[in-house]
């Protein structure tokens, strides 16, 4: 197998967005994967409905980069679940990402003549 770049898997274009949404979700406090998926789905008014599975690679990447921390615990349903929590670095990243996103959406909005 070559070392060449593979085409990005579907949905990877939204990677940065998904990361930001996850971090945003965790501002409210620690949550496990299922909760995060539910929250994203509901708060985005189902506009961003994706396969829930694609959440996990994103979560683990964030964990690797030290933006969230994780530990196993017991969920509200009394089931075993892995809980994710925002770290200080995660908070800083969320702030910068949010402002970058705002700038971008405003720019796009200007281009589209929405204001």
């Amino acid at each position: 197998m070559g070392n060449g770049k593979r085409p990005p898997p579907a949905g990877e274009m939204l990677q940065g967005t998904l990361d930001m949404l996850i971090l945003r979700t965790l501002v409210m406090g620690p949550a496990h994967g299922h909760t995060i998926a539910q929250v994203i789905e509901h708060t985005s008014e189902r506009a961003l409905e994706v396969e829930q599975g694609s959440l996990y690679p994103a979560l683990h990447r964030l964990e690797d980069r030290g933006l969230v921390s994780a530990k196993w615990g017991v969920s509200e349903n009394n089931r075993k679940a892995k809980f994710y929590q925002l770290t200080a670095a995660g908070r800083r990243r969320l702030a910068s990402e949010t402002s970058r996103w705002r700038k971008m959406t405003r720019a796009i909005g200007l281009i589209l003549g929405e204001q």
Partner: protein
Amino acid sequence: MNVRRFLGRKAKDAELAEEIQSHLAHEEDLRAARGVNTEEARRQARVKFGGQNTVRAEEWRYRSLPWVENLWRDLKFVARSLAKTPGFTAIAILVIAVGIGVNTAVFSVINTVLLKPLIFPHQEELVYLMNTSPRGSGPGANIPKFRIWSEQRSIFSKVAGFDFGGAGLNLTGGDKPQQVQGVHVTQQYFSMLGAPVIMGRTFTQAEDAPNGGHVVVLSYALWKSRFGGNSQIVGSTIQLDGQPYLVVGVIGKTFVTDTPTDLYLPFQFDMNSQDQAHYFAVAARLKPGITIGQANAQLKLAADQFRRTYGPMAMGPQDGFGVESLLSVWVGDTRTSLWVLMGAVGFVLLIACANVANLMLVRATGRKRELATRAALGAGRGQIVRQLLTESLTIALSGGLLGLVLGVVGVRLLLPIAQGMPRIGENGSAVTPDWHVLLFTLGVSLLTGILFGLAPAISASRPNLLAALNESSSRSGVGFRSGKLRSALVISEMALALILVIGAALLIRTFMKLEAVDPGYDTRNVLTMSMSISGDRFQKTAGVAQLVKDGTDKLTALPGVTDAAAACCLPLNGAFGLPFDVVGRPKGDAPFTGGAFYDTVSWNYFNTFKIPLLRGRMFAEQDNGAAPGVVIINEAMAKQFWPKGDPLKDRLLIAPGPGPFAEPARQVIGIVGDTHTRSLGLAPEPMMYTPIAQMPDGMTALNSRIAPLMWIVRSKVEPHSLANPMTAALRVASDGLPVAHIRTMDEIVIRNTSQQRFNMLLLTIFGASALLMAAIGIYGLMAYSVQQRTQEMGIRMALGAQASHIRNMVIRQGMILALIGVVIGIAGAFGLTRFLASFLFDVKVWDPLAFIVTPLLLSAVALLAVWVPAERAVRVDPMTALRFE
């Protein structure tokens, strides 16, 4: 970071699986709460989640290192494909292991003997001072020469004299007296060679002057073994020959010269001495930028000055001074020998490579379809080459690992027969595998893997896809290119093997001739030992004569001893040369009648060795200092200097002229049989014997200083059983002197031929392994070719071909290759055996016997190797063959 991610990925994957299960459970709970039944809730949860394996695969990829993955996959693939053909793999690894093992073993020895002595800082500046003459040049110095050389400050930055340990010294004062080797050196010796001083200091200028006091520098080995590495040793005194010596320093372990040395003493030359006796050597360090040519030019002037000062007796008009590189003088002897060995093992390795390359080619041909399929499925050419190279490197490295083990074991086996090689230490203790050897083995393994792997890889990587895939049943089509390549490999194996075997045959013939040489006396049941007599008691002849008489009496009284004698020298161990005049014979222009080796012996020497008396009489005990001077000559001397006359009527003046050796003329009283002074491989040289009791005092003093006294007994019993009684008897007779170097004459003879024995055995081993590998190679090729052509043979037989016809066809094909190899090999051997010239004795480099018998032997072996597959071809059952594949 990446690596940590990579290493933890198994655990992470398991965790992810668990996490997914937890997620699904929560989703089901959610749906169940809405009233969906369990079965449906489960289904919906799964759909909602998406592909579980996709998620896990993505995670897995994220946590992977591509090159490790690729390598690992290749290795796993290689392991699988090699495991499928265990026979091939085992043979390939074994062949490589033998090739590399032999290389590693020989390299270990070469590393010690050739490479390690090159340890002096800026050694290219070090030179040996030589006396040149039209007959050749040689080292050797006296004080006047040393002085004039030391004055050449325009070319030399340092000049130092040293001797070779000579008589040895008796170290007393401990539980047991011990004979040690003390080398005399001048003050600049250590700084010239850059010797590391680990404790104290070396000699000062004042200590190296006459009356400079008794001082000594210890070697590391003696400091450790005799003084237990005592850190307070500097400043204490030790007893040498009964005299106290102040220890001023200890030299480091890494300092190794050719002369085994226990301790160093200052020469304390009187630089005004006119003494012309040569008894030490001189080396110098050239000033930076001075070439050997410039030094030689300057030394020509110095030689003229020397001749003007000391006259033509001290240096003839044709003679002069010169320098040679110190290392070439020290290492020179063994260099050719070891490079020949290295060349031989290189050949063995090449044959091994050719063999394995052949095996790989065969394999690659057999896997043509597999490789073509892989290529058709999209494997790039690089990938296929990489896979095949990984395969060959895996084999090479496994073989290298095994070879390293074989090599380390092999060195141990090699060393007992390497006795007598310089610098390998007692029982080869100095030969140890070090990182040079490891690096060498690794390098050779990699090179081997690439060498034998590349050709098959390249030829396999350009398969004609269509042809290979279509080649469903037409197995007869063995690729033309690889077929030719394989034939070439087999031919070169045969040629290389032939060259090696011819070399081995020449050395075997040499050794047989050497073994057949008559030493001139009976070597059996003779025990010899040396005694250092450098003390004050033995500076005059009378003292030595008394010691010889007392010792001989005590030894003869021992049970089992039939005869005992003493001498300055033993046969085969060298002797001093001295000029002589025949009294009354005109000399013409020559300064002397001639020159001969000179041996001082006790009266019973010839009886003890059983050297036959040809004419006249032997020495008697009465031929002492009070009796008229007598001399016995050997047959070679009689023939050379009295081709017609009768030596017994003449008198000899030995070392004529003024000097410490001056003595009246001696009557020739006998002629004895020849012995070999230096080597069995050299014709006996002229030799004159005089009684120890009749030596001039000056000669005795020099003798005692530079050589130990040798004791010899002939026994009725096993000679080694006399070692302890002899040691004790001589201790009593000499008032407490120890002996050393206890050896039988047989051992001395074996030592004398050790180099030849070593060369012969090694080259025989190489030749035999080369022959075996070449045979395997040709067998493998023919066996494969027969297997590939099974169908063709079957058709031929079905059509009525005779079995003998088929057999002959196979044999002819194999033998054509073998014979081409043999012819090339003979040509190669003609060109290469001249490098063996210096190892041969009484055998020509184009020895007809070796050049006729060896090709016959090789052809016979090749015939045997192709006979087996030929027989198999004959036994092909046509029906089976036609259904083959």
